[in-house]
């Protein structure tokens, strides 16, 4: 299928995520009662196509495919699906895929906008390939973890509300226990934070084009701010017992902020968008 480019494969993957979203609504309407494998296999199929797309792109540019907004976004969604598939191996956690599907579909559709997939213009900065890949890959993995943590936080909020107000669907559903959802959300956010720290640290050592100061770059400032936000979220939970709903809202809010401002700051950043 050599006439199918990597973008075609990605498009197919996003279509499948769309189907998964539709099916997830169906699961939601039934109250998550049926332990269904269909959604898992849908995500698995999408993941397969998605991986093909990324491998194809990687080979065609001979780099880890994280060089422009399209590639970066594809990478984030790929990591989210990967984590969903791993967690979905545990029967009680399988529904996390149903909650992640709409996020995957929405972000995937956004990623397919043509303007995002621009070839980097001009002489590329002489980045040491491995360090750049490490930087980009870990940060994108971090975003993926934050995203999935936000998804788990939403599930937690929904289930907690349903249980508190004696909604039958909370008791009948096959979602994991509320306490476990909270633990998963915290662990994902924590994992994301660790990855984020590693990625930012790696980024500090990347060579910069002449005349561009590190702390002047919008993306660097934005990243530092984001890092502090997540640090505060985790610290508040630990030290001031801001648990349960407050942490969940924080995790969701931080990720929404990330989503909304990511592309903007990327475009403004001379380090990332020369």
């Amino acid at each position, binding site marked *: 299928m050599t006439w199918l480019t990597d973008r075609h494969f990605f498009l197919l993957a996003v279509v499948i995520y769309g189907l998964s979203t539709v099916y997830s609504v169906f699961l939601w309407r039934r109250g998550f009662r*049926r332990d269904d494998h269909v959604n898992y296999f849908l995500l698995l199929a999408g993941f397969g196509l998605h991986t093909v797309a990324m491998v194809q792109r990687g080979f065609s540019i001979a780099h880890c495919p994280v060089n422009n907004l399209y590639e970066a976004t594809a990478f984030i969604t790929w990591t989210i699906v990967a984590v969903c598939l791993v967690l979905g191996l545990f029967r009680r956690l399988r529904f996390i895929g149903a909650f992640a599907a709409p996020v995957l579909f929405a972000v995937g559709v956004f990623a397919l906008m043509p303007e995002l997939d621009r070839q980097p213009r001009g002489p590329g900065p002489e980045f040491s390939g491995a360090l750049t890949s490490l930087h980009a890959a870990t940060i994108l993995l971090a975003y993926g973890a934050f995203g999935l943590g936000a998804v788990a936080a939403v599930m937690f909020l929904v289930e907690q509300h349903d*249980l*508190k107000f004696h909604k039958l669907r909370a*008791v*009948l559903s096959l979602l994991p*226990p509320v*306490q476990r959802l909270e633990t998963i959300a915290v662990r994902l956010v924590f994992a994301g934070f660790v990855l984020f720290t590693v990625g930012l640290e790696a980024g500090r050592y990347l060579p910069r084009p002449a005349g561009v100061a590190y702390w002047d770059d919008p993306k660097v400032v934005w990243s530092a701010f984001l890092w502090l936000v997540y640090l505060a979220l985790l610290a508040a939970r630990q030290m001031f*017992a801001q648990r349960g*709903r407050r942490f969940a809202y924080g995790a969701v809010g931080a990720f929404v902020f990330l989503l909304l401002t990511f592309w903007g700051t990327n475009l403004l950043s001379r380090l990332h968008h020369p």
Partner: protein
Amino acid sequence: MSVVVIGLSHHTAPVALRERFAFAEADIPGALKVLCDSGVAAEAVILSTCNRVEIYAATTQEPAAAFAALKDFLLRRGAETQRAGAGDGCQWQPQPKAAPDSPRLEDRQQPESGGATAPGKGPEAVIYARAEPESLRHLFRVACGLDSLVPGETEILGQLKEAYELARKNHFTGARLNRIFQRAFHVAKHVRTHTNIQRGSVSVASVAVELAERIFSSLAGREVLVVGAGDTGEKVARALRSRGAGRVVIASRTRERAEGLAGELGGRAVPFDHWAEELERMDIVISSTSAPHPILDRARLAPVVERRRGRPLLLMDLAVPRDMDPEVNFLENVYLYNIDDLQTVADGYLKLRREEMARCEKIISENVEALFRQNALAGLAAGRGLNLSNLRKSAQTAD
């Protein structure tokens, strides 16, 4: 050779009548021997539980004749037997009459007040008889729990398996019944995995446990506080313990009762006035006191919740008038359920099971048809009974 079933169940007869026909486990092999020796059955299984007494028989006779002979056998036995009593294995049954937790179960139309004098409804009238394929359908329905007092209950499958094993061990089953019973067990398992018929519970105690499992990652190590002397509270504590909950602390005005229960459940008793001090450590609180006013309100609980640092707290208020101020539910990480809420959940599960029944009936129908067709096609092969007389008979009869 065809398979027939006769018997009586909670659908047709009150317990006073049923107990006359119940078989003690020790008596069953003898009864089976009588049945098979008399020639009416080539293979037989007797199922005797609190809610039904049934005889499944593979017979070469015409169904009508077989029914008459089997009914006769059962009636004669009923006349001979003294009161069997609801002895072996009947305690588990969630008898709605005894459980104050499920007053709204609609299934409770069985005529419990039968008594020894049941005018107008003699034993004859309450015995039902089914021939193929209805007998197969009946067996499958029983195995799946669809014929039970509480649809979807799972104990009956275990009892059916035991009854089958008993007959098989004593060589009272042959190819025919073996195949049919194996198929019944298979269908029951299929129904359990592919439908929701067996999900959830319909007694308040088990609903409470299910709730706890929705809230806590694991029941192990969770501490339970029981305040008050109510029956249902005790049942809930027992159910939680049996599902793995940690220590139980009992606080009751009647000290002996508290200590007795604590001893039984491996917990400890505390003086009633000190129950509030235990709150911080407890994860699940069950209250069923007879106090006329709430014993726990928001002001009292709020500081405790703070100190618990985000650990969820499940409060089950089983008392009427309520022991806990409903405002308490608005505290962070607190889940308050009163008796109505628990009953609503139990009703929800019952409704779910009813909905699932249609699906189960469909699965059962498919299996019955498949089996029926198999038997018809198999012809002589299916008639491979245990005794030579059967072999001869089946060689002569077109199955």
